[in-house]
């Protein structure tokens, strides 16, 4: 059963140790759920997978992380959770170093990795019992409800479940201890449209009920449009752009025309150039303007609003 419903404060009291009190104090001081500063991760033969990334997530924010294959999304999520040491920089979760989290902090973290086929020799029910044994609080009612709604047989081994069922089980496991920060790496990749919709509904409920901060990576843009209030684009090891969806629609424009004309439009309207692509006579600049401040198109200058897919293509190519 849920032992605590209020977010940070009640939860910390439930855990009831000195570290919880510290976490409470950090929350009181407004430490964000995630703060990364100067983060750098290199791989052999691939420097700058994460290249000096600075990033912070606000409490209760739902952020969809977008990036091309190999852009470093999984590496970033693992580094944020303290599962991978950066070559430079630091990550703090609720004010604590991610590499050395105390127990109270860990009880506040939920993680759904990309690979759902884990703990294959456990039966689904045993897997949940196994994880229940670690956490100071565990919402049995939520687990039972989701297990039955998502039709996962408890007595079947994880290795024998379908990919979609494995992914659902992984999500249930991550939600069961009611985390304050939920990190999901491509959580809907193996789900059918019904499963995806159900998962997104659950995610929205989680945010509305408990104010959980959610960070998830995905390739399915339509799902992002449905649920992620904030969208972050990872490109060249940095967050190239992050903003709420409606703000992106209002403020980001694709300009095309001669370079001189583009520069003049940016200067005149106080725009911030996000990317430049030189396509011969018609260079294309992706520019962010203050709301209602975008230039009007004319015979020489093209100025277009973009949908999420076009924005993704422009920013990540």
């Amino acid at each position: 059963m849920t032992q605590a419903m209020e977010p940070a404060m009640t939860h910390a009291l439930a855990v009831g140790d000195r570290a919880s009190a510290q976490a409470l104090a950090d929350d009181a001081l407004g430490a964000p759920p995630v703060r990364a500063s100067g983060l750098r991760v290199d791989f052999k033969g691939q420097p700058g997978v994460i290249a000096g990334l600075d990033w912070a997530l606000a409490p209760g924010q739902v952020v969809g992380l977008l990036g091309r294959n190999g852009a470093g999304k999984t590496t970033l999520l693992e580094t944020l959770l303290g599962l991978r040491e950066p070559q430079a920089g630091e990550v703090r979760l609720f004010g604590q170093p991610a590499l050395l989290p105390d127990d109270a902090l860990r009880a506040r973290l939920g993680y759904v990795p990309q690979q759902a086929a884990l703990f294959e020799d456990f039966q689904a029910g045993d897997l949940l019992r196994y994880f229940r044994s670690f956490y100071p609080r565990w919402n049995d009612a939520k687990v039972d409800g989701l297990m039955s709604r998502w039709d996962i047989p408890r007595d079947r081994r994880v290795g024998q479940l379908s990919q979609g069922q494995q992914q659902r089980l992984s999500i249930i496991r991550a939600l069961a201890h009611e985390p304050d920060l939920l990190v999901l790496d491509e959580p809907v990749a193996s789900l059918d449209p019904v499963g995806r919709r159900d998962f997104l509904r659950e995610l929205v409920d989680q945010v509305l009920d408990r104010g959980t901060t959610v960070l998830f990576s995905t390739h399915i843009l339509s799902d992002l449009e449905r649920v992620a209030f904030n969208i972050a684009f990872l490109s060249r090891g940095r967050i190239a752009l992050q903003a709420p969806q409606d703000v992106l629609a209002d403020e980001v424009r694709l300009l095309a025309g001669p370079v001189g004309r583009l520069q003049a439009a940016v200067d005149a309207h106080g725009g911030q150039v996000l990317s430049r692509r030189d396509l011969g006579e018609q260079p294309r600049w992706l520019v962010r303007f203050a709301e209602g401040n975008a230039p009007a198109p004319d015979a020489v200058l093209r100025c277009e609003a973009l949908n999420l897919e076009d924005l993704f293509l422009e920013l990540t190519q």
Partner: protein
Amino acid sequence: MSAALPLPGLGGHAAVLRAMGRKVGRVWWLLLPVLGATALATMSNQPLAVAGTFCVTLAIALHLAWWAAANALLGLNDPLSAHLMPGQLRRLRESALGVFLGVAAACGGLLGLVFDHGLAFTMGAAALMLSFAICLRWPVMWLVIWVLPWIALPPLRELPLALQVMDIAREWHARQPFTQTGAVLLLLGAGLWHLFQAGGAAHAQSWAQRQRVQHLMTMQGSAVPATTVWSRGPLAWLGRCFQWAHPLWREHLLRTARPTTASVTARAEFVALRGLHWSATASTTLLLFVVFLIAEVVLLVFLPDRAGRVIRAALPGLSIGLMSAMIGPFFGLDATLHQTRREQALLSLVPGMPRGIEMNRVVGLRLLRHHLVLWGTGVAMMMALQALAPGHDDGWGSPLLGLNFAAVALPGTLLVWRDWSRQGLPKGARAAVLTMLMVALVGLSIAATHRWHIPALWQVAASVLVTVALGAWRWRALQRMAPFWPVGRHAGE
């Protein structure tokens, strides 16, 4: 006939042999021990030592290369191709038969140069090679061919019928060696021919089973519980029998779960080690120990006059088998920990799991203790086996060859204290070199017992002292390593 299909005749065979050759080429490193052993033999004063060593080790290497070849050829025998591609099955069978006879003759010739009786060795090599292929085709035959004989052969060898059959075979070989060899090779060749299937439901079923085994083999000896690979059928049942304590221990861990470091790491270790966990090893070993005791009682009751001799004859093999079971988890550790690295990532996030240097101390100590307990149990059980066996030893040649194995293996257990964050996917060649090094050292240890009369137990005592000294050095190094889990996260850096 479609132009895309391979032309009949030698072209098809060449394609099969090329595909096989690519797989066999991956075991090029088998030449290393051949050259190494031959180089060592140059130090010997004995005439023909170099040639003899070269021939014997090359014959062994050829057997292992056949293993790779048979695996590759059976891998080409998929049900769809066998059913749809004209002539594919025949080409596979003919190619396999050609390679089989060629390798058997080469092995027989090499061993015959050293020990004479080339034809007998050819038959022996062919039988061994067919047994490899049978085990690849039906994995359960591993047990029948390679495990049961250790238990069943000593008493069977004493039976009058077995003695009679041996006499007849020997007599036939003395009178008509070529006829006998031809007949045996014909029989074994026919067996090999029929290992290749022609499509259909049975083939599809055995193919699926083979895929599962291949999946296991690509995990380089990592320990996946048998019930994960075989969910139903006799192998699943067998797996459950041999790992009966594994789920019981998991239940115990969950029932007694506490938010303490010891309890949390015990639960995490259970997942990270999978089938290498001591509870799985203990299940298998206890089961086999009980089987041994029952066999001993049966022998004492039904063959009281020969029981002592038979049981003592089985002791060297049993002690090696026992120690292999106890040391085996150490050899599978790299692959298993690499395979469970994602589970480790999740477990690093649960409350109570030590992080940073503390993780190295706790996990490192648990890993070492795990292997030391298995090692100690193996040594104790070997002593118990010897004590329980009726009769007496004669001379320095202790029947417990496993003690030599134990003496060599103990310092190696300290390899568990290394930077696991840099452990990539283990390479087969590395495991093979480690195994061969171990075999060579065990050989030296046995030679020390038999030629220089250094008792195996003294060697064990010396090994303990070396291990303590090395352990003190490695413990300091362990404090400077990156946290162990998740394993392999820095392997690409």
